[in-house]
């Protein structure tokens, strides 16, 4: 990690939903231009960790910083400014189902830029082209497969050229070829635009391609952190098994 101030930082974040403690003293630091992958079995708090970074979930204890600003108790207006610098790909894409796929991608541009309609449509088509959905501008989300919706969600997350990209299982539900294309897109984005990434995935080959740091969550706690090699050599059998079972190397 570089010496500069972290772009994303979670300090001792604890979160419970009812009696269930989902995160327990979780710390995470991501420097600009780096990629961190959050690993762990289902239901260990990976998605909730991502939602803390964009302020969709507030911690019960601990603080969340984005680009040096404490967003934990930030008022909505200020938080909106922070969110404009973050792209978020949801696990189930979360496309707005009352508007077309193209308009989903155009939505952030219409809200937050002064581009005219033609430029917005052109940019949305370009983004859809990047994720292999060039001809689907007018399709409705309900008409797309799960994988196509995921890619459209990624195009929407990239619309404002975010400084930080949070992706919840970007290649889940995709065929191997498309998954590899999405991985390549994310790697290229990180290299070309110096985009900071926090990615949740179960796909270890994808994670190795995208991330330079890993965080392994288990029952809401950080069980292991470090590089892929560190996790491969982890003292925890669970971590080693996870890395092997998911196709190490």
């Amino acid at each position, binding site marked *: 990690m570089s010496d500069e101030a972290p772009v994303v930082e979670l300090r001792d974040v604890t979160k419970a939903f009812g009696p269930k403690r989902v995160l327990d003293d979780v710390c995470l630091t991501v420097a600009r231009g780096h990629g961190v992958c959050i690993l762990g079995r289902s239901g260990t708090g990976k998605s909730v960790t991502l939602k803390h970074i*964009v302020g969709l979930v507030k911690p019960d204890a601990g603080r969340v910083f984005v680009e040096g600003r404490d967003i934990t108790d930030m008022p909505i207006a200020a938080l909106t400014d922070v969110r404009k610098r973050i792209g978020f790909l949801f696990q189930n894409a979360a496309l707005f189902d009352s508007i077309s796929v193209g308009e989903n991608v155009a939505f952030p541009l219409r809200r937050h830029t002064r581009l005219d309609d033609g430029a917005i449509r052109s940019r949305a088509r370009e983004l859809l082209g990047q994720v292999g959905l060039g001809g689907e501008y007018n399709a409705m989300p309900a008409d797309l497969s799960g994988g196509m919706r995921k890619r459209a969600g990624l195009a929407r997350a990239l619309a404002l050229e975010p400084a930080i990209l949070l992706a919840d299982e970007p290649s889940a539900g995709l065929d191997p070829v498309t998954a590899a294309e999405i991985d390549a897109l994310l790697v290229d984005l990180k290299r070309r635009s110096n985009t900071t990434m926090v990615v949740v995935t179960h796909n270890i080959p994808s994670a190795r391609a995208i991330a330079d740091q890993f965080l392994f969550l288990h029952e809401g706690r950080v069980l292991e952190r470090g590089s892929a090699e560190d996790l491969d050599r982890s003292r925890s059998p669970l971590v080693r098994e996870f890395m092997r079972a998911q196709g190490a190397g």
Partner: protein
Amino acid sequence: MPPLILLWLEAVGRGSQFAFRAFRGMFLPPYEIQETLRQLFELGSRSVPLIAVSGLAVGVVLSMHTRASLARFGAEALIPAGLAIALVRETGPLTAGLLLSGRIGAGIGAELGAMKVTEQIDALEAVAVDPFKYLVVTRVVACVIAVPLLTTIMNATGMLGGFAAETAATGMSLSAYLKTAFGSIQFSDLIPATLKTMVFGFIIAVVSSYLGVNTTQGTEGVGRASTRSVVMSSILLIVANVILVRIIFFFYPA
């Protein structure tokens, strides 16, 4: 497990806070004009057929009942006036309100509920849009504008239905009917009764939005939010009507 009364009080408190936030949001920027107009079309224009047809039917039935009652006293000449006053003062606003709490309340509850369980509301927040302003306040403003307009349409078609029944029974001309009907209606009959439906619109939108955005437990929860939206907004609307009628009588004694 806290006692039921505490849970109920907590729910009332949360609901009241939500309603206050929605009311304040109507007057504070950003105004989301485009989305409000879209909602006005979706909730308002699309409700016109239901309201118009219902108004027509209510007018016919009301006219027949009025005739049956007034004929006993030989006061058939008062039928258009009686119908107009009954329709404009109470039947039109309340019927329109209840019909719209079904049509609009169910729609808002289900739509926002579905958006909640599919994380679309989270997605709005993630793209730096305030979902309360974008989803709730726009619907509240649209309902506050649409319900009085739809009530006026119901009053108009109700009068038309009353005329149809009257002319079928007595052959009364339209001009004579309208002259008798409108001759009896005063400002205090029409305006306060119509304006009170702005409150109905507020109640329908706030209740159904609140239940929609607080939906849990997947698609089953969406169905429950939709049903509860209709039930809760109808009950609150009827209770509010009693209070509003009392207030109107205070300012405009009969």
